[in-house]
């Protein structure tokens, strides 16, 4: 059973799985409540839930925010991998702090401030996850453009997502070469496991150099193609900007989304009084 479980986890962590998760995250959930929102609305929404919690210490308010972003994260159908990374991140943050505080004579009372910190961290992270992985990269880029972020930033976001699958399959191939031609140490026993892990990490690091060279070789064509296809023209043209932003629409549902968020937070604050 344990063997099965461990191979299962190893299977899951293959590059194929990563690639699928990343793609699914970017393009797999286009019909969720979150993905359909006007990106401008979400960005303003994010400005609040990504910033304000840092400056407020009120437990009720933080709880309310936390529950709300929990719901939006659920609605955005975020992929398991992102949530997993999030969980590890938050846990290691406060878990580590808790142990440190115990060393310096803290006790269960330290839990309350730690809880507040954890809530702050998780609320902001979940809000980011909702906005940045719940939206499809192009809509996000257009939203940023509306707020006058430079065109280069919005192009980079959507181009990065276009490149990701490519980068991943290139990485997969290079890694495959290492796996076929290298020889991993046996993973028997604790020492073996450590050596195996070190070997894997080393392999991933060594893959980096051929990966970058291969991608660099490819990008020569991309740079020329972008020039022909008018990328530079678009970066400075006001009309292109107008065309790109034409399909941003503030709808009744967007208003509802904002209204519900405000209502929820005020309700909680009122109850507390």
């Amino acid at each position: 059973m344990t063997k099965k479980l461990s191979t299962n986890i190893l299977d899951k962590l293959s590059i194929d799985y990563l690639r699928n998760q990343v793609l699914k995250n970017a393009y797999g959930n286009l019909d969720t409540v979150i993905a359909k929102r006007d990106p401008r609305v979400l960005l303003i929404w994010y400005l609040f839930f990504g910033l304000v919690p840092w400056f407020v210490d009120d437990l009720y308010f933080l709880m309310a925010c936390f529950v709300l972003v929990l719901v939006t994260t659920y609605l955005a159908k975020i992929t398991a991998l992102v949530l997993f990374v999030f969980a590890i991140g938050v846990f290691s943050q406060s878990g580590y702090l808790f142990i440190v505080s115990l060393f310096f004579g803290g006790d269960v009372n330290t839990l309350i401030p730690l809880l507040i910190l954890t809530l702050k961290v998780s609320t902001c992270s979940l809000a980011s996850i909702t906005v940045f992985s719940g939206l499809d990269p192009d809509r996000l880029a257009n939203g940023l453009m509306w707020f006058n972020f430079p065109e280069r930033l919005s192009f980079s976001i959507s181009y990065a997502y276009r490149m990701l699958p490519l980068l991943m399959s290139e990485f997969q191939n290079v890694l495959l070469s290492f796996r076929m031609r290298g020889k991993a140490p046996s993973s028997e026993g604790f020492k073996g496991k450590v050596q195996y892990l070190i070997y894997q990490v080393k392999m991933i690091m060594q893959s980096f150099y051929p990966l970058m060279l291969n991608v660099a070789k490819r990008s020569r064509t991309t740079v020329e193609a972008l020039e022909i296809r008018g990328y530079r023209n678009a970066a400075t043209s006001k009309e292109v900007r107008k065309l790109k932003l034409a399909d941003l629409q503030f709808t009744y549902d967007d208003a509802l989304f904002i209204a519900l968020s405000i209502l929820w937070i005020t309700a909680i604050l009122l109850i507390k009084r």
Partner: protein
Amino acid sequence: MNIIEAENLSYRYPASDKAILDGLTLTIEKGDFLAIVGNNGCGKSTFCKTLNGLIPHFITGEFKGSVKINGHDTKTMTVSELAHMVGYVYQDFDNQIVRPTVLDDASYACLNYAYSDYLSRGKEALKLCGLQNKEKDYVFELSGGQTHLLALAGALALNPEVLILDEPIAQLDPGHADLIYGILKELNEVHGKTIIVIEHHSEYIAEYCHHVVLLKDGKCAFKLPTKEALNHVEELKEANIFVPQVTRVAYALKSRGYNWDRQLPISRDEGLEYFKGMDFWPNEKPASFKRGEVIVDFDHVILGYRTMSKKRHVVFKDLNLKIYEGDRLAIIGSNGAGKTSLLKMLVGLSKPLSGSLKIMGKDTSAYKPQDFAEYVSLVMQNPEQMFIADSIASDIAFAMKARNISDYEEKTAELLEAFELTALQNRDGRLLSGGQMRRASLAIGVALNPEILLLDEPTANLDMATRKEIMDTLSRMQDIIKTAVIATHDMQLVAEWANRIVVLHDGEVIADGDRDSIFADQRVIEEIGIRPPAVFDLAKELKADNRIYTVEEFVKQARV
């Protein structure tokens, strides 16, 4: 009317001290379908980049002479203006696609040039390329052929009068190659576009192009109507262009006095007329070979994977295949038939869902990829992916070093010598030429002296000279490697190299035999769309029981 006029054009790249174009003068008429041929490094791509203004506007360097498009000098125009007149599809077309979905990419240029109807322009271009029902698809879900069509649509969207395609079919199977050329033909004939292809597949040149331009040392050696051009057999051969097989046969027989006063045929139909009434010596008996032990055994293998939408895609429903020692096995079938999946299983990259795969009699279900490496070695289609060290010498040594083989230094030196790489041993593989890269990848593949060597499309993407070089290397390797499997679309390679052919279709083995039985099987030929070598068809038309696969065999068997 001339749409392109290049006069005394010279160009030198900034980092080079030799001019790549050196006084080139050439005119191209509106509505032409033109092939540009020439050696590697003769300036074909460079010339094409002067037409869309990338040179001199984007890539600097020393530019002399003039290029006029529709009477306008490219020096006085911007790249944007030229983009509306000249569309360009790169050889590595994957990299010119920059948007995530199909319609997005097709309309990208129109959006960038601020056409408010950019979406309908993109749709129009997709329709011309037969991609109208793929609009919402993601670009990474397309097949190679579809990706190429998308790149073409992206270039067409601005409605340019001239279309340039750099080696359009190098990476495609014959079915997709026909599709691309069919679309180009329509664009040329129905929509009046001027088409320029850089091409070395002379069979396609003969079938589709009106004119051929030969570039040599940065100059235009000739521009002639296709038939006349392909009659310059020797001159083209010097430039590493092999004329169609039928032309080569006629040329070889001419030296024996056959039809000495006639123009050489360039197509099958012309060939039938030209060789009418020819008599042949009987076929030679195929060389018999002894079948050895079973090395690989696929027993009721099922293989499938999940796609992004969580649907399960089944590649093999029930695969049964044995590979024997001494097999030179060619696996053929259209794209998506399961060729690559089969190779992947043999190196442990994917595992059967059920059924068993035995290698050298041992079950492989608990193997890791490195365990497969003891017996099986894979040479990937794209050699760049095999270069993981900083020089080819250390790449070749890599696997031996990892396995503590004591005399790996000697063995590396031997391999470098055998594959003629000694002089290049300290270079990074990526910086070598196409042929050198392939040779290096083959040397890496045989380094561990595997029982069985797998090659994925070893001749794809190569010009004819390099292709010949690799063919020679492959036949020399028969002394080192007893058993080899090649997955390929290249029927000339299959006919000349393989002693056994397996045909895959939708994940099933639908035929298994030698070249005589496979190429004579009308059902297989038609169902899978395999195209036997041109010379095979021709010989069979001339005399039904002819089994001739190469130009040399034809010349030998012809009774003249």
